[in-house]
């Protein structure tokens, strides 16, 4: 199962980490892959730390456990870095993607034990400039697609446009903002290379 990609999302209840995991499953499904998208359920409250997971593979997925050694970790809320061992089990050739205004170097200085590639994206700034509101999950979704190279970027954007058109049929003005958030994120991470 070498082509299996495992992703763990860390967020806070209400931020849309679960939705982002389900969106990623959706878009990976649309490009022909086998997917799993599932949150870890407990007594969930707004603001409490939550975890969600993705498995994405070219082959049928049978395992039904949580993910302990992910290829990628997505941190939707920067404040979790202090309180949750987000990098636990993360594969050495994997990557952590953090929603923060800081640079990867700054993060590395603060968390020298992160033994993997570090990517940062200011989802707050991107979201506020494209959507006028703070919805971090759209930029974080684009960031994980970029970093993981799970799918072709154009194909990703096509599928997301299709998905937004369906999801926001009643409020089409939101579609452009969301698409811009995705595109801006992909470009920012291009510049980082």
């Amino acid at each position: 199962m070498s082509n299996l990609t495992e992703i763990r999302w860390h967020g806070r209840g209400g931020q849309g980490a679960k939705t982002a995991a389900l969106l990623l499953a959706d878009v990976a499904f649309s490009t022909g892959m086998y997917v799993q998208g599932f949150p870890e359920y407990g007594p969930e409250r707004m603001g409490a730390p939550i975890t969600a997971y993705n498995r994405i593979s070219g082959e049928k997925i049978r395992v039904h456990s949580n993910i302990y050694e992910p290829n990628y970790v997505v941190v939707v809320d920067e404040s979790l870095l202090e309180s949750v061992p987000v990098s636990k089990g993360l594969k050495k050739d994997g990557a952590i993607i953090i929603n923060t205004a800081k640079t990867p170097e700054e993060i590395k200085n603060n968390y020298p034990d992160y033994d993997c590639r570090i990517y940062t994206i200011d989802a707050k700034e991107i979201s506020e400039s494209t959507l006028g509101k703070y919805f971090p999950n759209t930029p974080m979704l684009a960031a994980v697609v970029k970093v993981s190279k799970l799918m072709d970027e154009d194909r990703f954007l096509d599928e997301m446009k299709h998905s937004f058109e369906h999801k926001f049929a009643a409020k089409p003005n939101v579609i452009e903002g969301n698409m811009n958030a995705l595109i801006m994120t992909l470009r920012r991470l291009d510049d980082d290379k």
Partner: protein
Amino acid sequence: MSIRERLSGNEAIAFAMKQINPDVVAAFPITPSTEIPQYFSQYVADGQVDTEFVPVESEHSAISACVGSQAAGARTMTATSSCGLALMHEILYVAASNRLPITIAAINRALSGPININADHSDTMGSRDSGWIQIYSENNQEAYDNFIQALKIAEHKDVQLPAMVCQDGFITSHAVENIELIEDAKVKEFVGEYNPECYLLNEKQPMSIGPYDTPSYYLEHKRQQAEGMKNAKRVALEVAKEFEKISGRKYGLFEAYKLEDAEAAIVIINSTAGTAKDAVDKLRNEGKKVGLLKIRLFRPFPAEEIAKALKHVKVLAAMDKTESFSSQGGPLGAEIKAALYHEKESPTVINYIYGLGGRDVRVEDIGSVYEDLYKILATGITGETYRYLSVRDQEGK
């Protein structure tokens, strides 16, 4: 052509219900099955089904409404979990003894207490002697397929018993995964119209349902009920054959995975079977002869067939995701041991309790079970036959 989709286990059940378009759905919400009546009531509101949806004030009322409507001659369904199923307990027996083929989508969740919303099998295992057919499902695909088949098994004239189709709460009910759906028209044709022989609203054949049964008849009625359950085994295989024609997917009484030449094997129910298959493949790659048997029908329990499939195994682990406080294991362990009792040669059986209250079960956990079994094989020392898997001891808490 089947329809390639991605749905959670709950969405898959709601979708099957939509395709079946039953006459009545009566339900009360409870985590983690809530989404089923939620999605289904949307189908009702949107006019995609012409089902009478009865939102009741408790699960006792939900199943009572189901009994009433099914007795009247209407195809009836509901969904529930955990304490909801427990609150239905009294009426489950009434439904079964009145031979009413109601279908429940049971989304497995631990029973209180301590209160817990996650998966184990304490809820449906508590209903195992109520006279309902029980079919268990590894993933969203099996939940969907089993739900469509359950109806047809339940309504068969030689069976006429209610059925519950079980899957693990959250683990599969809330996980979005790939699924192959069957076209509407094929599902509709497969389930057909519900035409009961006897029903309350048939003015040409007045009848009463559920009257007092005296000691002079009660025993015979129970015997007939047991006969219906016995027949369910044959009917389940007939229905599976028909289902294969519309889906291309094969179902049996249980699934045997790499079992033919296995010397160590486990018997397991629902979602962890998938995790265990990965463990089996890993060990097979190391040259170990391991296999597994996944329960599909738990009621009726296909004892003879299971014994035949397992008798050559040397050491066996029966995996119970519930306690029964017998102090010697859980309900699956008891059934497996009873099934093997009449075999001349049969495996040593260890009964594990695991995964209670949603405790996550990893490939490595199942791997450790096989390791334990190999230790028994190597040393010949069985040790404790009633064990807890991956439980922390007092020091380790």
